[in-house]
């Protein structure tokens, strides 16, 4: 369970990114956080694994207090929390499997890291994680040679290799095209259902939020302005969260019914041909 009590975060510049947040997230739930850019979604998610320190309040994750954790304890806590980033954050110059093995860092002694001698059991975990996101055939390919969607799936595998209890995803699909975005969201949902990993996803597309979120949390200027189920979150609610009327940019704009076949097609052909721009 994750419990925010009176949590506030103020950045050094004086920006109040979170104001007095009270929030409980049950184990195994799939929560989507929505809000405009700058609303504090990233800060909320990063507070959970201690990447952003709290200014006040307390935050309990799996029975441990994040704000009281020392460096060592924080690392132990982080190893139980997988994280997925908008820009994938892969080491592009190294192989996919080496990237996934980064998920085993905390369980690996430093000397093994320095020599690159990961335990066979850890290698097996990494391969299984890649199998779960259906990209194991790329294990020894350089990460730079994958498309955006493939890279994001590798980064999900990296988080899975941690065998996490909680999965955080900060705008995981913002850099992807609509069909790929759906594939990635579906992967996250499947992992949540199959493994029971508590999943918290930041999104700004309301249709995706409604489609995948069991529970939706709306943020505006650092405050929680909505907390309810996907069905409760209608257009009126989103207009309220966004503080303006909705525009075409707020939806992913995918035709309502996409056949699974199309998505699979996209996954295996179109994507892999594309090169990463960087």
């Amino acid at each position: 369970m994750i419990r925010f009590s009176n949590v506030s975060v103020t950045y050094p510049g004086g920006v109040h990114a979170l104001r007095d947040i009270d929030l409980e997230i049950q184990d195994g739930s799939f929560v989507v956080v929505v809000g405009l850019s700058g609303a504090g979604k990233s800060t909320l998610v990063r507070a959970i694994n201690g990447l952003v320190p709290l200014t006040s309040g307390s935050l309990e994750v799996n029975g441990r207090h994040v704000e009281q954790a020392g460096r060592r304890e924080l690392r132990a806590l982080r190893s139980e929390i997988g994280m997925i980033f908008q820009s994938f954050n892969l080491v592009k110059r190294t192989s996919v499997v080496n990237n996934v093995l980064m998920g085993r860092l905390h369980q690996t002694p430093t000397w093994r890291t320095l020599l690159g001698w990961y335990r066979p059991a850890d290698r097996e975990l990494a391969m299984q994680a890649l199998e779960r996101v259906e990209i194991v055939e790329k294990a020894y390919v350089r990460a730079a040679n994958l498309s955006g969607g493939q890279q994001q799936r590798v980064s999900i595998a990296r988080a899975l290799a941690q065998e996490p209890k909680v999965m955080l995803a900060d705008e995981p699909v913002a850099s992807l095209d609509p069909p790929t975005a759906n594939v990635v969201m579906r992967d996250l949902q499947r992992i949540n259902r199959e493994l029971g990993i508590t999943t918290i996803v930041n999104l700004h597309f309301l249709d995706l939020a409604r489609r995948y979120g069991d529970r939706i949390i709306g943020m505006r200027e650092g405050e929680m302005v909505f907390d309810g189920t996907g069905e409760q979150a209608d257009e009126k609610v989103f207009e309220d969260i966004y503080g303006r009327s909705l525009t075409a940019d707020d939806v992913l704009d995918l035709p309502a019914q996409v056949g699974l076949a199309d998505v699979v097609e996209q996954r295996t052909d179109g994507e892999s041909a594309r090169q990463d721009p960087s």
Partner: protein
Amino acid sequence: MARPIESRRRTTVPGSRPQPPSKTRKTIGFVAGTAVIVACLLLVDARWENLSELPGNLGNYVSLMADGVLSNPLEDPETGYWQRAFELMLESLYMAWVGTMIGAVVSFPLGFLAAENISPRPVVLIVRQILNAIRAIPELIFAIAVMLPIFGFGPAAGALALGVGSVGTLGKLTAEVIEGIDRGPVEAARATGARQLQILRWGVVPQALPEVVAFWLYRFEINIRASAILGVLAAGGIGSLLSQLFAGTRQWDRIGITLVVIIVVTIVVDLISAAVRHRIISGGKQQLVEVAETSSIPAAS
């Protein structure tokens, strides 16, 4: 289009685990590298046992040097030490500067001759090899072999040696910059019916000059250090003082003062040079392009 490329590259069926890439080459490389290093360690005739004296001796020297550096610089003999060190460091800077200028002036045309997009192939090949050859020879060797016999001992010979030594690197870098320029302006100049020299002047030079000038400055920084080396051959400058001090009874206090002067002056000059280089690279391009454009108007009309 993407399909055949993709299927050729993919060696495994989707969904199945691929073979890990072979480690043989990596292992061979690693073993060979280690063997070379071990061989060097075994074969070199170094008195490793002297390493044990190193910390004690260095500590000793440092405290002696600190004595010299920290004693009142306004009293004799320290005043003289500081003065002499500054004078000779300045002489080193002069040598380095003149050497850099010689290198710049000589390397600039050579850079054009060595650029593939400007010069005919045979010329490029010949000039490149000449530049490579010059780069292979340490400045010191130029000084010993050519400058000292003709010019005798002194900073002028040192400056000339630095100049010749700079030609190799500067020429190569200039050629690389020229090869990297945007072809548009060159074609535009050619389209107006300009002659080859005019094309170079208005199409190439304005684009290449800022980066080339930045390399000149960078070479100046290197030449300051190299000038110290030439001092060993009594070519003047701070190097002469250093080698005299070490050749004699090693007055560590004076050596300390000299080293501090070298460190401070070098760092200050490096900082200034780096700042100017950044300015030239970021703002200078536009400036030089503009100068070229504005001064080309009367020429065109």
